[in-house]
């Protein structure tokens, strides 16, 4: 029995963290955000070199063929470094959809390009977890029409699109009739937007009539977003402890005050069990499909709550500096805020958890 990360997973974690520490520190993230850059190719190229987009792709398609827990480990690193990158849609959502619902021809076409980093993906799934206003994409005779809101990883080469019948499609970003509109939002490390389709041709993935592939994509996506929050939360705690150890008031470091120590202890006490929950949820995605939906819902909702608590508490530990742009702690605060709403906020996800158990 081993409940935890394997040596290989720890090594992956170390190498991604090391790369991001060196090549994508906060200054680089600031530049990306402040200059409203669309892509951070330098960062993406480095992640490709580390094999990140190949994680879930089968070996036969040029991938590494690892599992959801490995991808979650990578996501945690990205959250820890508030990294701008299309990892979630490209390396997780798209390959999951294509592996489950793609024909052999579609797998051969897309998966090798994903694995070698030459094709990036965004994902238009928001309507599947709660359509806002008049949003919705309909598919008829191979053409898409309508509007997808809050498309994630917006500046990508292709999109994974869910239609109103829960079928998935792949559409290149330069397809005819497709227009992209950026929606400025609070987390500037993650570009999202609106895409309208006007008789846009799509490459439809197989439809089993039950939306199974879409559900699986959302489940794994939720686990990944939770992992991102876990990484961001851990980083906020680490920065809080470090700041409190250096900041002196009343002739003592503030880390020696119980009021401050207890806030840090409470953060640790929330983070540690969440880590175990996340590991388990990621594990069941591959190993226990019957349980994976419930676990994914609970993990997404729980990490959302934990993340909000950490975001608030860590900022307070930093005092006035926590409120400034100078320190940049708000990058993590906003990252966590984004993660809370995307692919279903905690209340709606918990309702799905209840439904999964036949409670509503």
């Amino acid at each position, binding site marked *: 029995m081993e*409940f935890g990360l394997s040596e290989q997973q720890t090594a992956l974690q170390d190498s991604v963290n090391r790369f991001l520490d060196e090549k994508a520190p906060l200054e680089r993230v600031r530049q990306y955000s402040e200059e409203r850059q669309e892509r951070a190719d330098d960062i993406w190229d480095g992640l490709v070199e580390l094999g990140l987009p190949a994680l879930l792709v089968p070996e036969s398609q040029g991938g590494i063929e690892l599992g959801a827990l490995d991808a979650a480990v990578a996501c945690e690193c990205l959250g820890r470094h508030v990294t701008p990158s299309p990892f979630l849609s490209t390396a997780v959502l798209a390959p999951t959809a294509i592996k489950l619902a793609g024909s052999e021809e579609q797998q051969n076409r897309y998966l090798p390009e994903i694995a070698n980093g030459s094709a990036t993906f965004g994902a238009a799934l928001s309507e599947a977890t709660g359509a806002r206003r008049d949003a919705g994409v309909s598919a008829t005779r191979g053409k898409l029409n309508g509007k997808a809101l809050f498309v994630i990883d917006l500046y990508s080469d292709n999109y994974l699109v869910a239609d109103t019948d829960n079928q998935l499609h792949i559409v290149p970003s330069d397809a005819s009739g497709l227009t992209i509109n950026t929606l400025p939002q609070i987390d500037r490390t993650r570009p999202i937007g609106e895409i309208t389709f006007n008789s846009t041709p799509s490459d439809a993935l197989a439809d089993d009539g039950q939306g199974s592939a879409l559900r699986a994509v959302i489940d794994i996506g939720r686990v990944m977003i939770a992992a991102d929050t876990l990484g961001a939360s851990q980083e906020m705690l680490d920065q809080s402890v470090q700041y409190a*150890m250096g900041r002196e008031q009343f002739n003592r*470091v503030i880390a*020696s005050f119980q009021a401050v120590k*207890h806030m840090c202890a409470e953060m640790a*006490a929330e983070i540690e069990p969440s880590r175990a929950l996340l590991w388990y949820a990621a594990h069941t995605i591959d*190993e226990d499909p019957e349980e994976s939906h419930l676990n994914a819902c*609970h993990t997404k909702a729980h990490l959302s709550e934990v993340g909000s608590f950490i975001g608030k508490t860590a900022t307070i530990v930093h005092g006035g500096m926590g409120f400034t742009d100078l320190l940049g702690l708000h990058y993590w605060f906003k990252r966590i805020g984004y993660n809370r709403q995307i692919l279903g906020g905690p209340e709606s996800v918990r*309702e799905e958890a*209840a439904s999964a158990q036949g409670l509503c």
Partner: protein
Amino acid sequence: MDLSYGPEYEAFRQGVREFIETNRDRAPRGEAMKSDRVQSWQKLLIDNGYTARTIPREYGGHGGEPDIIKARIIGEEFARSQTPGGLGGQGISMLVPTLLELGTEEQKKRFVPPTLAGEMIWCQGYSEPNAGSDLASLRTSAVLDGDEWVVNGSKIWTSTAHLADWIFCLVRTEPDAPKHQGISFLLFKMDTPGIEIQPLVDMTMARNFNEVFFTDVRVPKEQIVGKRGEGWFVANAILGHERDSLGDPNSTLTRLNRLIEIARQETVGGQRLIDNPVFRDRMMKIQARVMSLRFNDQRVLSSRINNTDARLARMISKLQGTELRHDLEGLAIDIMGEIGLMYGRSDYLTDNGSWQQQYMYFLGLIIGGGTSQIQKNIISERGLGMPKEPKFDQQAKA
């Protein structure tokens, strides 16, 4: 991640299940401590290696090899089938491991076998009215007079003192030494002249706790564990045992599942409680917390098996386990509303009033065994490397 225990252990689990199936009608059903039924069940469990498993035979145990997974499986199977497991209590869970580690050969032979057999009942004399979280400031004194210690002072929160045959007790023997170095660990009989016991009724109205007063209680000199002045270290060898067992998330899960069952059956205004979206949301919120602590627990278990580091995960379990359980019991009361108030015989009493009882009981456990605040000190200092509290008494002396 590898969550299976492997075929060898699944076979072991099967054996435990068969044992329970065959023998469960011999298990005690609320009989008094020391009753024949309790003691013969305990003996049966020891013989089969389902309690006192790794304690050597010469001290009345089963004499098995330590095996964390087998111990876990036994716990799981007895809990699952709601069959009483081996005897607990402070003698077995705290004193026995201490004696095995630090007692003399004579002490082990004299005390461990009858304690394991359920023939010798112990209480723990640690806390005092003025020594709670700051336990090391305790003042009950023991002065050597010839071949005997003479004990004076008082203890509080002494569970089962009125039922105990013996007490293991922390006393100050070196009044001039620094506070942690002036304490000794004594064992003495509760019927020794000079001991007075007064019940301390708790908020659940149970008379489990006591205050115990010592007036010139004479204790044979050799009834000390460890040397004079080493009592603090002797006691600390086992404090960790107590903390680990409070707020077990598996029993919290059993309670949550029962709550969900109640919410599916009970109605208000003709509507099932589970159909109220606010209650449902609160239940789901707490379900995720229960799951996260259960997996945290598995992670800690795994770290013990594989000798890996999960210190923080372990340190937070008492804090989070007790807070969660208290929250869960409180949620059940909210969901049941007025029915949740029932505490005494009526047609509306649910689960024997256990929701109110446990709601309060776990408030007690948030405080007992190291308060949540003390836990947070431990987590921040030992887990996160933050500085210790400044010591005002020492500053004042300097």
